[in-house]
């Protein structure tokens, strides 16, 4: 596609749309990508990044990460910080799947030990972790208990035997957003999600058994610090979010913001998906409190799934999870808004950072990351397609301009229907089996939609984040087993 003529090259990985690109822009928009990825971005990405730049209280730049693609309101990969006093909060800057994120767990098993049991492992995982349309989880909890889950996140899991203290330490925000208020969530949102704890969902959500091969380690010292210490070490990575509860919270507030955005607060509409309210308004604060509940559901969901994964490995190998070294590397959220301190005009200030399909990337020595990662920077997990592999990276100090944010995935290049026209689910399953990736899915059609050819090259995206100084590659992890919804 042709790029907007106003797009200016700032550096090989930074491209800028000036405020003259669109009437109403308060700051320029910056796309962080090498030319090869930039060329593949849809026109919508530039328009959406420009729309975000029009929102009140935006600071510095409206950003789009290297895996950016067209989204709703914000582009996917959109990042923006707002002045809490004069700025807004927008569900379109966070996404419908609030606290969708990635979790990575170590084992001390090697590929040689796991290969002979891969079918059994994948089959057991498939039964232990519900996947697919409208799936419900094994945690039987009342609506009342669910209100506690969404206020306490992984802390509830710890209190109920689904987590270890170390799991919480290895989770962004300690697995709980402070200030979550269940009263800010509709009965409908609770009804929609109270029985979905411990479920994967569908679409691009997955749970994968992966291998860190020696030839795919980019930085041995950091890999060691992250727990990768033996050749062909097996790890488990999974991707999911806050399920129906989070989706309903986002939909509820999108509609409630539409009613007040212009009539009550006089904010101009550029796109109804960018509905917003002043952060300090009653509506803005109510959404922030509800969004935190959804974020906590995301953490609790991933924590319970980890618990099930540990049970499966323990059963199959007849060894305890501790004996199998099943420790978390980290859990990262990629759809959130958070109050953080950043340098604005030479001054440290508290700002509200929206990250939509974008991962926090705190560098070495920064507060808010576990002590064991103070030297390395936080682990960053970028998921790729089920055929090609994923990346473990480390946060960098040089990511300061993007409010310490990097990419979150590889991003689609082909629509779901197009992929399904080109790929047959059953055939793909057989081909992946031949390439040594054992897959179980609840939908062959859904599997075809997630074929590797429908995604950008994850190697290019991961390298781009390194070239742009957003995060640095530590290891590429390749799949040998996968369950999909």
């Amino acid at each position, binding site marked *: 596609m042709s790029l907007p003529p106003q797009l200016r090259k700032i550096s090989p990985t930074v491209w800028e749309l000036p405020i003259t690109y669109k009437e109403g822009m308060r700051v320029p928009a910056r796309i962080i990508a090498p030319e090869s990825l930039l060329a593949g971005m*849809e026109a919508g990405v530039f328009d959406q990044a420009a729309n975000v730049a029009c929102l009140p209280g935006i600071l510095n730049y409206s950003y789009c990460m290297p895996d950016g*693609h*067209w*989204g*709703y*309101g914000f582009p*996917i990969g959109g990042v923006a910080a707002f002045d809490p006093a004069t700025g807004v909060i927008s569900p379109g800057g966070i996404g*419908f*799947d609030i606290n969708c994120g990635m979790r990575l767990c170590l084992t001390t098993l090697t590929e040689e030990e796991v290969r002979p049991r891969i079918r059994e492992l994948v089959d057991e995982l498939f039964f232990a972790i519900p996947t*697919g*349309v*409208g*799936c*419900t989880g094994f945690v039987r909890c009342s609506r009342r208990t669910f209100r506690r889950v969404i206020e306490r996140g992984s802390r509830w899991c710890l209190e109920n035997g689904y987590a270890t203290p170390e799991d919480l330490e290895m989770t962004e925000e300690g697995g709980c957003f402070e200030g979550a208020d269940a009263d800010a969530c509709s009965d*409908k949102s609770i*009804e*929609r*999600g109270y029985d*979905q704890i411990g479920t994967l*969902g*569908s*679409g691009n959500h997955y749970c994968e058994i992966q291998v860190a091969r020696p030839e795919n380690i980019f930085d041995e010292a950091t890999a060691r610090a992250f727990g990768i210490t033996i050749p062909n070490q097996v790890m488990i990575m999974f991707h999911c979010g806050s*399920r*129906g509860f989070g*989706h*309903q919270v*986002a*939909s509820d507030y*999108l*509609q409630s913001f*539409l009613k007040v955005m212009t009539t009550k607060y006089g904010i101009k509409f550029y*796109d*109804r*998906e960018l*509905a917003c309210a002043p952060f300090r308004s009653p509506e803005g604060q109510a959404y922030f409190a509800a969004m935190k509940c959804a974020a906590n559901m995301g953490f609790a969901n991933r924590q319970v799934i980890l618990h099930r994964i540990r049970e499966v490995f323990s059963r199959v190998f007849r060894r305890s999870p501790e004996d199998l070294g099943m420790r978390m590397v980290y859990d990262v959220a990629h759809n959130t808004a958070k109050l953080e301190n950043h340098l604005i005009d030479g001054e440290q200030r508290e700002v509200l950072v929206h990250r939509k399909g974008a991962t926090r990337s705190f560098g070495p020595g920064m507060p808010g990351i576990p002590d064991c990662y103070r030297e390395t920077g936080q682990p960053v997990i970028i998921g790729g397609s089920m055929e090609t592999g994923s990346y473990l990276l480390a946060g960098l100090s040089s990511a300061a301009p993007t409010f310490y944010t990097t990419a979150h995935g590889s*991003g*689609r*290049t*082909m*629509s*779901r*229907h*197009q992929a399904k026209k080109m790929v047959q689910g059953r055939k793909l399953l057989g081909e992946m089996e031949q390439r040594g990736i054992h897959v179980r899915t*609840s*939908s*062959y*059609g*859904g599997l075809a*939609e997630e074929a590797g050819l429908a995604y950008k090259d994850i190697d290019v995206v991961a390298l781009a984040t390194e070239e742009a100084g957003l995060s640095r590659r530590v290891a590429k992890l390749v799949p040998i087993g996968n369950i999909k*919804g």
Partner: protein
Amino acid sequence: MPFRFHDDISTADVAFEAWGGTQEELFISSAAALLRTMAEAPEQVERRQELTIRLEHEELDLLLFSFLQELIFYKDARRLLLHADQVRIEERGGTFTLEAIVSGEEIDAVRHRPLVDVKAVTLHRFQVGYQGGVWKAAVVLDV
């Protein structure tokens, strides 16, 4: 079927256009497109349970938005896949009211061949309009 999917509008998600001779037919065909998004074999969804949905809105397009959201809600809250059988829409004093009879059954992973969990209806390029004697809607679903 009175709907078609569009590949060029949404790369990551699902976009469709639905149509009907009346507003009611448009709502029924939009519900059919939503069901087809979630299940490869919507014709296998048997009408074992019936529900009535009542909604109102000042805007017709947001009435459709709310109607589809309601069907998504039942997919998660009751695990129900639903056909829209009858829809009645009335406009009075600037407010549109809807009463819909919907019916279906709990998700069956074998018969219905589920495809993808729809998270939400988005307002991206969301449109309802009357053109050349036909009611049309453009809808993008987040999946």
